[in-house]
């Protein structure tokens, strides 16, 4: 029995323990790129930040700094693309949010934002309160608590059971809310794809290789990718307007 407990514990420790550590040159490149940025050598900084990302170190800090370098090079589309990638990794980072807002004020296209009701705004605020990873850990902890409460419920007296039911109900509600929110986020990450216009302007056509221009968007505009067909993708703006554009002019987030 003791042996089994030890094995399970070791396995858990092994799984929970962070096993991946970044390679040393990555941090060196990062410091070097930052130094180049300070010297306003933005082109060189872009190359080094890109090297870090190519090495597989997908870090929000690397994406953020790369976005800043592109912004200084007046490539708003690429800047926004990297800011958006950084936001996916660190959704609650205030620096990233501020820079996205600022870069968006420098693009040509102004798309109307959906107005939210008071209740809608609260729901959205709660939904975005915690990053997905934090939410998943909270769900795991809450599920453990619920399982312990359930076990206690089985072995305790009638009076204590009432308190356990109250406590479990609250925990269950919180777990359920967190679960739904996490589910929506996971669905969004798996199913919804966004892209940013990288070319100066981009004509959306009525069909792949079509002649009719439905609308024109400019560098930095973000839209949703709905469908892909060879070198063309069907994109839609928040206004609901859709059209086919060439994938080479886009940067997928």
């Amino acid at each position, binding site marked *: 029995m003791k042996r089994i407990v030890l094995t399970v514990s070791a396995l858990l420790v092994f799984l929970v323990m962070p096993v991946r550590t970044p390679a040393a040159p990555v941090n060196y490149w990062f410091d070097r790129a930052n130094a180049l940025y300070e010297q306003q050598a933005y082109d060189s900084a872009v190359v080094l930040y890109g090297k870090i990302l190519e090495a597989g*170190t*997908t*870090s929000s800090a690397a994406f953020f700094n790369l976005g800043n370098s592109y912004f200084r090079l007046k490539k708003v589309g690429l800047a926004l693309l990297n800011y958006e990638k950084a936001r996916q990794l660190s959704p609650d980072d205030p620096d990233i949010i*501020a820079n996205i807002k*600022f870069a968006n004020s420098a*693009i040509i296209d*102004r798309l109307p934002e959906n107005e939210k009701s008071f209740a809608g705004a609260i729901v959205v605020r709660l939904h975005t309160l915690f990053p997905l990873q934090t939410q998943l850990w909270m769900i795991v902890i809450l599920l453990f608590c619920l399982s312990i409460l*359930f076990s206690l419920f*089985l072995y305790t007296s009638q009076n204590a059971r009432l308190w356990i039911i109250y406590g479990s109900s609250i925990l269950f509600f919180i777990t359920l809310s967190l679960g739904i929110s996490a589910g929506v986020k996971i669905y969004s990450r798996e199913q919804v794809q966004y892209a940013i216009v990288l070319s100066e302007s981009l004509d959306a056509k009525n069909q792949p290789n079509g002649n009719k221009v439905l609308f024109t968007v400019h560098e930095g505009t973000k839209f949703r990718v709905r469908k892909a067909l060879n070198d063309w993708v069907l994109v839609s703006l928040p206004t609901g307007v859709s059209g086919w554009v060439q994938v080479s002019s886009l940067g997928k987030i």
Partner: protein
Amino acid sequence: MRKLNSILFVLFACTVAAFGQDISISATADKTAVSLGEQIQVVVQLVANKRLSGNFTPQVPKNDDFDVVSTNQNQNQSSSITLANGKMTQTVNITYLFYYVISPKKTGAFTFPALSCTVDGATYSTNPFAITVGKEQAQAQASEVSASLTVSKKNLYKGEQALLTVRVAQKANAQVQLNEQGFGGMFDKLEKEMSKDFAASRLFTQLKGVHEVVNGERIFSVKAQYSLVPLSTGLLTIPGVPFAYIALKQVRSRGGDPFDDFFGGNPFFGGGVQQVQRSVMSNGLSIQVSPLPPAPAGFTGAVGTFTMNASADPRQVPAGDPVTVSILFKGNTRPNSMPEITMPQLADCEVFPPEKHVSVDTTPNGIMCQKAYKYLVVPKQEGTTVIPALTWTYFDPVARVYKTLSSEPVTVVVTKGKSGQASQTRYLTQEEIRQVGQDIRYIKTGVTLKRQTDQPYKDLVFFVLFPLPFLIALFSFLYKVQSERYEKDSSLILRRQALRKANKVLASVSKQASKMPGPEFCAKLAEACEDFISHKFGFAATGKTLDEMKLELSGRGVQPSALELCVAFFESLDAYRFGMTTLDASYRIGLLEKAQKLIAELEKQKKGKPA
């Protein structure tokens, strides 16, 4: 009934014997004397002694005397067995029936022609027969149901809409049935005729009849309307179209047969009313269509009466906020005759593609089409934005001139936008950004890079951790259930542990078998077996005689084979106890094996598995 059958005139029955093949052909008609407007059914019967292949349907030649209203065909097979002089012969006949419903075109007499068909290279023909068409009766019948076509305007311009009304009327007391097939057939024929020169659209979905009084006579009439737009010029004609209906004829027997007199004349028993298929022709129409006068520049071909209206909401906005510009365009023509409206280029405004809604209403005055456009316009500069008047040219057939339709110009007042957004240039230099007191936030420094993922849910840790709470809950529940079972039945634990305990004792005895004194060895073995039996079968085996133990065990369903093993084991022990044998090493091993075998057998028996 014989009388009823005699009403059907058998005009001609011509049988042509085929040489080498048993094929015969004949033609019959239900009557030879009819009134104009009445229909005649001709049946051609082709009988063959084998199944025929290919197209052998007799064709009715085109003629000026009658129209073929409908054709149909059917086939059946019959066989007969003949026994003559002890020889059995089987004959198979396949009958092909071809039905032709014809409607005479004029009064007088005409000859229904011979109909021919070719089978395997040989031609078979029916004989022609005469038909007489009377006048007086025809007029009387035509008045019981009538069909007519009228058009709202007989002089039109190309592209102008007119209304075509189809009216079918019957006298209120007429013994006729108007059915859907009749109307459907008439409309299909009419639409086919009209499609050559007109774009016709139905203005009805369901047919409704009305009762009215015309010239003091009560009439039931059904009206249907079409929107008619001529596509070519000149004198265009719409020929008359037939309307098929069913006339109900009262049949009364006068044959002196009391049975026929009673049942034949009583509708309750059926056969009192005969249904006769009839049709009536509508009048034809001629419409003069004139070409349009020479068109001015910008004319897109729309003919009719149109209105256009443009509006904006709100009329005052801050720069950068959207304004909805609505354009409503109405006219009495088809949607594809109305041109598309496009918003002109607006300076300092961003115009998004419009939201378009097209609706078509079918009214008693014809088709009314409405096109609504909603443009989202975002003014970028403070000041006044004017959406200019939209103009469009069409032909007014009433005034017979080209007219230009123009909407009112719409003015939108644009106030200062939020935080100067509207006047911001595309790229801001660092200097310009500093001037407005803002810049992007500085790069992140002093950070140790870690590989992050935006899909933490794919981490193995969560795959392992998520099921654990559920397993804990399940384990607790199962443990609780087990505990309760043990609490309820204390012997359950003993029963469950009996085999393990017995095996444990036997294993320790086996280890020390050579060192152990004989009485102790036997006592240990007996104790192990007795304890096992006691715990497993729920009775105190210790102290019982062998017979009592056998009785208890057999009472608990233990098979004789196990009982024999039990007896053999305990008798072997008794043999040593009573000094009948010595307890040497081989005897000890034998005893041990017997004990193990007994326990294993009893365990199997308890589990319900025979040894």
